[in-house]
């Protein structure tokens, strides 16, 4: 298989005695949405700034499709970036910001209207100064800016931040569509369920270190069964008696066994089941909390 990838290779960044990034290595692959997940302050933005040369790393390299970003003479034609939706001159109109970008990279000026329509900014909104934009509108403008050069690689820092539910849905559909067309999409987020919904692959970062990376499906497939029974205590005892590991969670039991094994134990003991299902879906949050929970939890963790 041939992949066009973003390759982050042992990137470290220190500020004095503070280590912002500690030998960060990961890949984002073509045709997939890679979610870069971590609590606020974990190093996501710093990593992304290193990718495009805004922050010089202390050591390590990043290549995008085999190139160092700083070596590209018109990078936005291939790599679309949204690093901080608020980092625009507040006194410019949304349309003007897109027009300046289009002019710089040599994109046709018709692209501006096309993208304003795509991201759902009306003509009236586009004529307002960015100072008066909500965060959601800035994100939409930022996405439009990232798409000016019809790039095949997208690097987006917290693109979902500030979007309303309709906007989040729109973003999800758009990014999935981009990946389906063979583009490489890397997006960062501190929102677990967002990454869970959008990403194919997940890179988990905390305190400047990569904790885990791989396919989302691997991350989510927690082995076990969730079961609810009328006689919960009796079921727990019966399962434990048969040597299964059981933990009680809220109204239900989590059992390290296949659903069929749990069902047969219940049947043999005449226990009435209310619900029986494989333990999936809850896995990412649990893993995220577990992996980032060495020591005190960072204040920024939200779900």
């Amino acid at each position, binding site marked *: 298989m041939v*992949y066009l990838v973003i390759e982050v290779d042992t990137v470290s960044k220190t500020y004095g005695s503070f280590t912002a990034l500690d030998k960060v290595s990961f890949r984002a692959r073509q045709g997939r949405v890679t979610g870069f997940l971590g609590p606020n302050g974990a190093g996501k933005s710093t990593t992304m*700034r290193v990718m495009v040369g805004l922050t010089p790393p202390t050591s390590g390299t990043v290549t995008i499709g085999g190139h160092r970003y700083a070596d590209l003479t018109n990078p936005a034609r291939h790599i679309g970036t949204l690093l901080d939706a608020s980092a625009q001159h507040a006194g410019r109109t949304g349309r003007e910001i897109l027009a300046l970008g289009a002019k710089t990279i040599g994109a046709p000026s018709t692209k501006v209207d096309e993208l304003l329509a795509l991201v759902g900014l009306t003509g009236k909104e586009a004529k307002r100064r960015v100072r008066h934009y909500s965060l959601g509108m800035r994100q939409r403008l930022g996405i439009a800016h990232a798409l000016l050069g019809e790039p095949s690689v997208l690097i987006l820092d917290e693109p979902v931040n500030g979007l309303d539910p309709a906007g989040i849905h729109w973003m999800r559909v758009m990014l999935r569509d981009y990946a389906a067309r063979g583009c490489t999409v890397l997006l960062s987020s501190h929102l677990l369920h967002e990454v869970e919904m959008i990403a194919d692959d997940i890179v988990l970062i905390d305190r400047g270190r990569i904790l885990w990376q791989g396919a989302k499906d691997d991350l989510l497939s927690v082995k076990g069964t969730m079961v609810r029974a009328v006689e919960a205590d009796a079921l727990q005892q019966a399962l434990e008696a048969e040597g299964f590991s059981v933990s009680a969670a809220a109204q239900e039991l989590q059992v390290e066994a296949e659903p069929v094994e749990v069902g047969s134990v219940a049947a043999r003991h005449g226990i009435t089941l209310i619900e029986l299902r494989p333990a999936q879906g809850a896995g990412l949050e649990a893993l995220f909390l577990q992996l980032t929970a060495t020591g005190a939890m960072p204040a920024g963790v939200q779900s």
Partner: protein
Amino acid sequence: MSEATYTETLDVSASPAVPFHRIVEVELRKMTDTRSGKWLLITIAVITVLAVGLVLAFAHSQDKVFETFIGIAATPQGFLLPVLGVLLVTSEWSQRAGMTTFTLVPQRRRVLAAKVAAAVLFGLAAIALALVVAALATLLADQPDRWGSYGIGDVGKFALLQTMGILQGLAFGMLFLNSAAAIVTYFVVPIAFSIVTGVVEQLRHVQPWIDLNTSQQPLFGGDGLTGKEWAQLATGTLIWIVLPLAVGAWRMLRAEVK
């Protein structure tokens, strides 16, 4: 990811590099598409016209000659052009627009060169405006010997003076990456310097060599510069424009943009 992956190289050959003239055009446009930039440009133009207009209306008839008009146009421009130079750089940092600028053109020295070019172009436009307005006023005043001995050499000195001002502003902007600090330093340092040279007598004979304001004085006059005056202008330029420009460029090329 443990499976073998082979990195395909992203083919960038089809996209032409961003040409330098386009970066310059964008830099020029960025000075006119915000309120602060637009009003600064309008102010420079209006004050140029106003200053010349006042002289035309109220000065003694024998003073209403080209040299007076151009001199009076130069003074307010001399204050405002450096501010323009400062803003050309600092707006990228104070408004964080630099994140976009340097992501679209990661070769920062090209952006830097484009800003220098834009500064010079703005300076030349201001000079052209001053020359035109002063010439019109001269024609309107219609005094005998109205052009005096003003020649191409004097135009050159005037252009040099204004261009030095805007480049010094640009240099201070790059040095501080902050509008307020750059503008205040630009205006306060020469004053502080003249106070120091006023007090410390030993400095007075070296003043023309190290104080740009002093070494620029001959540029205002009607006579040509002597070799010594050119040398003093060169050392003043070296200290107050070239050195800050070099340090500022070093800073701007290396600074983390966030």
